[in-house]
């Protein structure tokens, strides 16, 4: 178990390293106008040269990468070229907003998708048909469109929620809940419909297996069959789809945060990428890769816990 975790963490570090090289090279290609973008149209060549030297942009790519890497290994991710704000503190204020939203959305997706998926698989008939149709509709509407519809109806017309975030220091839990409610709903609908579909088919597949027939023939109750045996065998499929959704959500949340003006990772990532603000982009990418690695590891461990058959040695 420990060696498994260590191995996975080791390969995670390799992935981090490779991604950092790739992203750094891509940013290098588009960093030609940085000094000009910072100093404006009318800056003189001398002023541009000073700025380039200040940012280390006059160095060759390898020198620049190693200076970033040695800093990052010491825990220093540098500071934004445009705002001078240290990257670590930018991330520290934004990660809680984004991760609260993603965590709440994922939790709700897990619960709702499981309930709907199991209901559709067990009841079949009209329940199943409603779930299937709902899944097609839910899957085909992008999250940001759902977000805009929700704002228009629930925030602007009915006034139940703020149209854009009111999260600020010192505001109570109610402000957080009100500000996050609509973005979370916008985020979770696609996840619920997609997840329910996967869980439904996994449960149906298990229900048709021989061991279920055997259990039933021994007079074991339907409830116990379902919750103790079928769900446990169907769980790996569900967990895998949930983990994929979480990783996909890290992208989707960027647009949702823009629409709701949430001070999370989204605005930071968009602004930094469009400006080629290399230290910030590197910080955001590294954070994302770490989240993906950790999520995958947790899912693998959970799978092993739920289902000894897939447990790793």
């Amino acid at each position, binding site marked *: 178990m420990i060696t498994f975790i260590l191995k996975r963490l080791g390969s995670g570090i390799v992935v981090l390293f490779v991604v950092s090289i790739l992203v750094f090279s891509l940013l290098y290609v588009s960093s030609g106008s940085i000094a000009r973008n910072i100093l*404006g149209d009318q800056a003189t060549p001398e002023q541009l040269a000073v700025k380039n030297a200040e940012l280390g942009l006059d160095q060759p790519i390898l020198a620049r990468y190693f200076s970033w890497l040695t800093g990052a290994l010491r825990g220093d991710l540098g500071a934004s070229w445009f705002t001078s704000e240290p990257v670590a503190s930018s991330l520290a204020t934004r990660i809680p907003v984004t991760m609260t939203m993603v965590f709440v959305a994922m939790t709700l997706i897990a619960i709702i998708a499981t309930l709907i998926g199991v209901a559709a698989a067990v009841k079949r008939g009209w329940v199943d048909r409603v779930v299937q149709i709902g899944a097609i509709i839910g899957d085909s509407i992008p999250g940001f469109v759902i977000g805009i519809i929700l704002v228009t109806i629930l925030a602007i017309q009915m006034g139940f929620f703020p149209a854009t975030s009111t999260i600020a220091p010192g505001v109570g839990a109610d402000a957080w809940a009100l500000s996050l409610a609509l973005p979370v709903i916008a985020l979770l609908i696609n996840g619920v419909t997609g997840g329910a579909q996967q869980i439904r088919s996994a449960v149906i597949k298990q229900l048709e297996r021989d061991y279920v027939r055997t259990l039933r023939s021994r007079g074991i109750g339907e409830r116990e069959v379902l919750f103790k045996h079928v769900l446990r065998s169907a769980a790996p499929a569900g967990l895998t789809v949930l983990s994929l959704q979480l990783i996909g959500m890290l992208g989707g949340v960027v647009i949702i945060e823009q629409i709701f003006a949430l001070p999370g990772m989204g605005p930071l990532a968009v602004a930094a990428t469009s400006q080629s603000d290399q230290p910030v982009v590197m910080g955001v990418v590294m954070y994302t890769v770490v989240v993906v690695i950790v999520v995958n590891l947790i899912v693998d461990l959970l799978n092993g816990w739920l289902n000894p058959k897939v447990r790793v040695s």
Partner: protein
Amino acid sequence: MKLGPKAAAAALILSTSLALTACGGGGAAGSNNPGAPKTTTLTLGTVQEIRSWDPAQAHVGHILQPYQAAYDSLILREPDGKLSPMLATDWKYNDTNTKLTVDLRTDVTFSDGAKFDAEAAKANLDHFKTANGPQMAQLTAVSDVAVVDADTIELNLTQPDPSLEYYLSQAAGLMGSPKALGTEGIKTEPVGSGPYVMDKAATVKDSQSVFTARKDYWNKDIQKFEKVTFKTLTDLTARTNALVSGQVDATLLDPKTGKQAEGAKMKLASNQVDWQGLLLLDRDGTKNAALGNVKVRQAINYAFDRKTIVDQVLLGQGTPTSQPFGKESGAWTEELENYYSYDPAKAKALLKEAGYETGVTLDVPAVPGFETQLAVIKQQLNDIGITLNVGAAITNTYTSDISAQKFTSILFSLFQGEPWVATNQIISTKALYNPFKNTTPELQAKIDAVEKGGKDAGKLAQEVNKYVVEQAWFAPLYRVNQMYYHNSKIAVEPQIQQAVPSLYNYSPAS
């Protein structure tokens, strides 16, 4: 039972989610009752986050406004562009326009208690010249700043700069506390002599900056609110939603979202700040020989049905024009406005005279946000036999690609500022948007006259304007209406050459 911990976890999650959903309801959308007392707060939706509160990092246009809460400038620019005293009580040039003597107020202190005087003003100007801010070029002409006495400074210039007084009402004129300049602290918390001070506890990076009225502020006339909040809303949809739901009092929209705001009874404070059109950069025909021929450039100008383009691209929210200078710049003239009216037959004839009846190919880079414009002009150019090839552009290297002469023509949106600013942006050989350094002795003489023109710079720039229009250096299409909307709780006066008005232009509605 083995399911224990899992069941407990599920129960915990379920109760959390129930608590969350139970919190719904009760949000208050902004509404204004007639007869309600005057508002004492102002909440503005801003399109961009402030990079740093160091006054030397201040920018132009929409990004100047938040700095005006914390900082006074030496000169105040009125909504119509007139320059009035602020921290400077008086200023005048010597005969050669190479030395500007500025008298200063003596009764002003900064929010940290430091006194504003000649030394403080010099410290700010010196700091601005070396702090590598986005507008540092504003003081390029200033060689040094001398303290004459406690309330007088002299700015010595290497060459005349007709825009200098204007710059002192902009980023270069913002005065911060000399004790705070250059420190880390001022990057996140401004220290100025302005009408408001930052409420650091309520300010969140990337979300909002909150200011409260400064007690004993010297100029109560411009301190009209008790609290001013700048809410960062980079996304257009978010700005629209925040405005119509009453979360912000005013913000910048576009023609399409403006319709939604009008439906919610928001008021428009419209203004023209930018022009859009083609910059025919390769006027000597270095890389595209056809562009070296003035008749070809004129033919391009005659090819455009500008009225239709305005209707299609901007839903009518713009004014067709043939000149690159703005209406309030002083360089604008009525006769140049429709100099090139839509005339495809004339365009074809000009191409024939120039020897290009078999066709001309024009390459432009694709710039995000200009897809519709490019599609429309491609079709209209095609009608007179010019093929428009739309290539690729990488936004982040766009300006360096321009100065590297990578593009022979571009379709772009440009700010219409003061004549000298515009000349150095698109016409002079120093201009970024004149990468092939095109000029003629005739044009250079006209530009020199503007530089030395002092107060007459605007009038003299009319000659520059006339020259580049006749020589078809550009193919301007239209000036864009800036769609700045506000609710009825406040009154807003537009500011010339700014999409977003100066902070002084807002007041509680009576």
